[in-house]
């Protein structure tokens, strides 16, 4: 039982983790994540790595859509930019992976800022459609700039190497993914304790009021696009190292919808929401696959897996928007409150 925390300084009020319970549980989570690769099967490690990549991309989208209120359907395309950057650098220069990943983020950031320019004149739905346009144009570039991107055949990427060790198995890749995801998520969480993050939230709540308060919409909207697509670029770079082949079809519009669904299901405008949403949405197809495997004539049913998956995505988006608009993060908060207040109020 923990009723409330009396905070005696501003520092305590601003802290990311404000109670000891929270810190203890965070320690438990960290320990579990460190032990996980030694106990989990290869399949689960594969899923965990995928979840990590998706968490980075979803958190990036959450910064833009959840916190700044600019709906974007271009996240997958920005990931593609990152993935192609990694693939091209890896081929032509052979630079180490951390430089490639940062470059992936940087290039995606520049592209994201260009895409963000219409956000100065249009917003909301118009902007969402402009980002669809941008993602189609990027897809066109991926498929047709053959000298750089290899056309529709795409590019292959060598595994990342760390101290001469190739990160070519799920187990090894995990140790690259985990710290990177942690850094990115903490970076995002900390962003919203700064002026920049607060400005984003002000723009989401009412952009005209924000401008009246002295927040330059031009600068902060572009900044939000930049940060968001930086995340997407890094996630795309990791994706390239994980799957080691990049084609134009790797990043379809459906993937952007996937990320949008992830932050809706998880909860827009909370860091936890991006994480929970990415985990949930990555595992749903796997759970479906498992359920389909239970049916007597499983092979016959496997044909229907793809359409059912698309339907389930759509249903999740619609269902969460209608019945639980604040997403899984809100459910999580309710569960926590129950334990905080127990046994006084249930």
């Amino acid at each position: 039982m923990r009723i409330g925390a009396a905070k005696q300084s501003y520092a305590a009020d601003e802290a990311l983790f404000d109670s000891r319970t929270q810190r203890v549980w965070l320690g438990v989570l960290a320990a579990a994540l460190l032990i996980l690769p030694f106990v989990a099967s290869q399949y689960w490690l594969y899923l965990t790595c995928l979840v990590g990549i998706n968490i980075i991309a979803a958190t990036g989208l959450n910064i833009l859509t959840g916190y700044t209120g600019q709906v974007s359907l271009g996240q997958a395309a920005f990931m593609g930019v990152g993935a192609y950057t990694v693939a091209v650098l890896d081929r032509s220069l052979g630079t180490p992976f951390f430089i490639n990943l940062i470059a992936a983020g940087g290039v995606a950031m520049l592209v994201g800022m260009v895409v963000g320019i219409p956000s100065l004149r249009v917003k909301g739905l118009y902007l969402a459609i402009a980002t669809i346009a941008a993602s189609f144009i990027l897809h066109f570039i991926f498929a047709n700039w053959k000298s750089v991107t290899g056309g529709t055949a795409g590019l292959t990427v060598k595994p990342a190497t760390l101290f001469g060790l190739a990160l070519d198995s799920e187990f090894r890749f995990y140790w690259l993914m985990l710290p990177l995801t942690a850094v990115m998520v903490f970076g995002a969480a900390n962003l919203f304790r700064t002026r920049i993050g607060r400005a984003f939230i002000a723009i989401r709540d009412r952009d005209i009021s924000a401008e009246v308060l002295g927040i330059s919409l031009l600068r902060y909207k572009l900044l939000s696009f930049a940060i968001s697509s930086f995340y997407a670029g890094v996630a795309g770079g990791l994706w390239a190292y994980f799957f080691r082949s990049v084609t134009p079809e790797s990043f379809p519009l459906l993937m952007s919808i996937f990320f949008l669904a992830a932050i809706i299901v998880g909860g827009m405008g909370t860091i936890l929401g991006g994480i929970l949403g990415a985990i949930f949405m990555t595992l749903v197809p796997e759970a479906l696959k498992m359920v389909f495997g239970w049916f007597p004539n499983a092979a016959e049913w496997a044909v229907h897996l793809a359409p059912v998956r698309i339907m389930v995505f759509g249903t999740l988006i619609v269902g969460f928007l209608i019945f639980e608009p604040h997403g899984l993060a809100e459910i999580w908060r309710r569960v926590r409150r129950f334990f905080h207040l127990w046994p006084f109020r249930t």
Partner: protein
Amino acid sequence: MNFDWWMLFEVSLAGIGSGGLYALAGLAFVLIFKATKVVNLAIGEMLMMGAYFFFAIASILGWPIWLGVLVAVLGSGLLGALVERLLIRPMLGESPISVFMITIGLSSILVGAVELIWGADQMRLPDFMPSDPVLIGEAMVPPKIFYGFLVATGLIAIVLVVFRYWRGGIALRATASDQAAAYSMGINVPRVFSLSWVVGAMVAAIAGIIVGSISSLSPTMGVFGLSVLVVVIVGGLDSVAGALVGGILVGLVEAWSGTYLGGEYKMLATFSLLVLILMVRPYGLFGTHEIERL
């Protein structure tokens, strides 16, 4: 330099022809947007549903064509009513962005449903349009596009006349111009919402049947909806005239770029046009520029 003017003319005619279909689909979108202020990203999927209903009746059951069209249109109208009741009505008063995302979800559901029921393969709709090539001067227009254009313009004219003189149409326009005032004048605004979805879905179904019989039928037909979005944004979301002009414009741009640059440039040209319009005239050619106040 010997430029083939007849070819340009021919290509332009084909462009205007498919532009008529864009205009029809754009009209379906504008009808819904005008009355309910919902940006319907699932418009392409609604076209697709109409085409598949028609396919199920006319091809699988083998019923006559006219019955197929009738059932497809009625079925789509029913679907529109269901969508409005179950998905859009609960979101009344929520932020437009949430409603927009609902329609994204809806489009995934519809694509999934179609793939589940009819499979992901391409299908052919039964031919029901005359197949003799149509000659205008020396230019030849593909017959399907020509007759599709005729049907589209005819239908657009009917819809426009109906909404000018029919009581329901006047109610719809009243709701579009001022919801509260319309309500206080005794117009049943929720009913108008349903009505606009039903009519929008029906118009979309007809557009879908024509589009499906010109090319072919597959669950990826929803991509057509993206071009429709370009059409309505170019024309202005709430402008019927805009949908017509935008439709022809996009049709022309697609035809020209497809012929002179290559098929893969079609989408690129369309979306470049979209970005250009958004930068220069964010509210489209004929859309109302809404002034925001604090």
